[in-house]
């Protein structure tokens, strides 16, 4: 595939992202882009919604590439603003997990990734996942993982670390309510679950692979439902999520779908999208018509 040299780049940095607090990754990326001889502007986000707003204004301001410096959450936010505009979105990974960078095979060093994407990037146009009004790039988590995320964010002062998540997952195994969730894919077959992951990409946090068949290159989603009814049930299933053998278990099931609606009588089933909390069920999940152009 042909590579493209960017003309004008908006560097969108989330200083709160990632494990290396206090390091000015945004500044380092902006310097790398300038050194490569490409015009760029640096914008640092301060509050939720900033990245989405800044990305949305990029097309009108004449940028042809937005570089999100941060983690999957930063990409998630920027994607909301930029999808459908034709302007490309690239990730200079500076987050904790950096799943999108891993999926796309981008170097896990922000300035080096930036230089590569700006000078010789390729373009992958794909249709992101849609959850209600929002888009997601990697995955939607329904139930347990969003429950854990919410509790970790409530307890952690500042940016949570991997240890917070591990602690949160253990605590979640005791506090989660294992609600009855129903998924309807519109094809007559219903799925029952106590938690689920709707994947747009094959990777998930923590080196788990609940939806290995999902691919950015195909306009479909893979839904993986979990039916365990207790913390011990979930614990017994966890190892199979590393190997991908969970689909052989009776208490898990994975299917390829184009759209699926989730609902529950329990009013408190939270949803996370790309690691960001995003409301509660009921919610429809599908593939968006707004094309997102990724720089890879």
């Amino acid at each position: 595939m042909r590579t493209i040299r960017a003309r004008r780049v908006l560097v969108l940095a989330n200083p709160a992202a990632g494990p290396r607090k206090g390091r000015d990754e945004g500044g380092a990326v902006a310097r790398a882009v300038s050194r490569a001889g490409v015009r760029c502007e640096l914008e640092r986000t301060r509050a939720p919604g900033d990245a989405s707003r800044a990305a949305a204004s990029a097309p009108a301001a004449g940028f042809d590439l937005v570089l999100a410096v941060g983690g999957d959450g930063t990409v998630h936010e920027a994607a909301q603003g930029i999808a459908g505009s034709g302007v490309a979105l690239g990730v200079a990974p500076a987050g904790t997990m950096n799943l999108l960078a891993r999926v796309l095979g981008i170097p896990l060093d922000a300035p080096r990734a930036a230089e590569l994407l700006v000078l010789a990037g390729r373009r992958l146009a794909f249709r992101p996942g849609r959850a209600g009004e929002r888009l997601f790039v990697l995955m939607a988590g329904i139930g347990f993982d969003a429950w854990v995320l919410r509790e970790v964010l409530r307890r952690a002062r500042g940016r949570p670390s991997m240890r917070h998540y591990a602690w949160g997952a253990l605590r979640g195994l005791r506090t989660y309510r294992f609600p009855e969730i129903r998924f309807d894919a519109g094809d007559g077959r219903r799925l029952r679950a106590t938690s689920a992951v709707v994947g747009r990409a094959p990777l998930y946090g923590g080196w788990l692979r609940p939806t290995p068949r999902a691919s950015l290159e195909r306009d479909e989603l893979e839904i993986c439902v979990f039916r365990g009814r207790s913390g011990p049930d979930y614990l017994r299933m966890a190892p199979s999520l590393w190997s991908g053998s969970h689909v052989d278990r009776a208490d898990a099931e994975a299917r390829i779908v184009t759209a699926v609606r989730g609902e529950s009588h329990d009013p408190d089933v939270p949803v996370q999208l790309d690691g960001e909390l995003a409301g509660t069920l009921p919610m429809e999940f599908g593939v968006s018509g707004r094309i997102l152009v990724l720089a890879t």
Partner: protein
Amino acid sequence: MRLLLRNGRVLDPASGVDDTLDVLIEDGRIARLEAKIPARGAEVADLAGLVVCPGFLDMHVHLREPGQEWKETIATGTRAAAAGGFTGVACMPNTVPVNDSRSVTESILRTAARDAVVAVYPVGCVSKGQAGEELAEMADMFEAGARAFSDDGQPVASGLLLRKALEYSRLFDVPILDHCEDSGLVAGGVVHEGDVSTRMGLRGWPGVAEDVVVQRDVLLAEYTAGRLHVAHLSTGRSADIVRRAKKAGIRVTCEATPHHLALTDEAVSGFDTNAKMNPPLRPESDRRALLKALQDGTVDAIATDHAPHHADEKNVEFSRAPFGIVGLETAVSVCLDRLVHGGTIGLPRLVELFTSGPARILGLAKGTLAPGADADVTVLDPNRRVTVDPARFRSKSANTPFAGWSLRGAPVMTLVAGRIVHDGR
């Protein structure tokens, strides 16, 4: 027993007084109100630089006794009220057991006579057992001393029941205080439905779930000619409905809380369960509409909805934490700082919202310093700087979103029937 309050700015909107005057109190009543009153053996309190107001009333308080004494008692709740500048509180009936009969009303008043340091006005249940089905014995409770009726904590869900209550209440000319919430629409929501609820992964409680019930209640008040009072108004649309109803001559009043006037739903962004209440904090547009409703007279009273919960009950997952915050010891400072110094309303209007406003709704001969009135007095220092420190609350609970706030203006002295129940000068 004579007490002379000297040199204060006496501010009594009910009788149109706003002047530097001395106030002489004799036998628990206001005896005289004049420019210079000789002491003649009376005890003297020099209040130069301070504002002397009729005693503040909080018409929406959960005292939790009987039944939930680990959260609050009549003794601690009324001490919190006194420290917060209140001389009287109306206590909601959702105790354990609920206040749905003469015997519970009487026992609350007996405990109050023994333990309370400010006046306690019981609110009786609208329905038996607060179950929303059968009308409670309102006449019995009224005779025993109940001054309003409500199923607060929950709405009067049945239109038929509300109709009966409004009709029945006309006999004693008492208001029905409704907690306006369509539970079906709320559907388990815990924060305002909007950007913040999405960002937090929490079920939203949409403003329209309040508006539809306010509108229904207003229609029933018009139909029955009963007296409706909307508790803790939280949305701009509800304020519009009340404003229009008042213009049309329908007998409706409403209250707003300091937290809905001072905070928005952004306060829950950090998952602070001390900012979780029902109705939830709303976005800035609703807050602004409430401020306008304060200015134009749509809102009749400011009430705290003081809802104490133990720290252990609040320190759980956000969606599981109980609704409610304490308010008695922060309300006056929050309102002086945000509303008066913030330029929304003048001090006389604020005093009205805390005195004659609620007194009129509850039908109490209170809220004025006119000679002959009970000597319930609240003294304010409009410029004192205070920092909210929950560790120093008299309340048993400390669930406040205002911890650490630095505020300008505070209540400094409280008198009930001529007796000083709090002196922080």
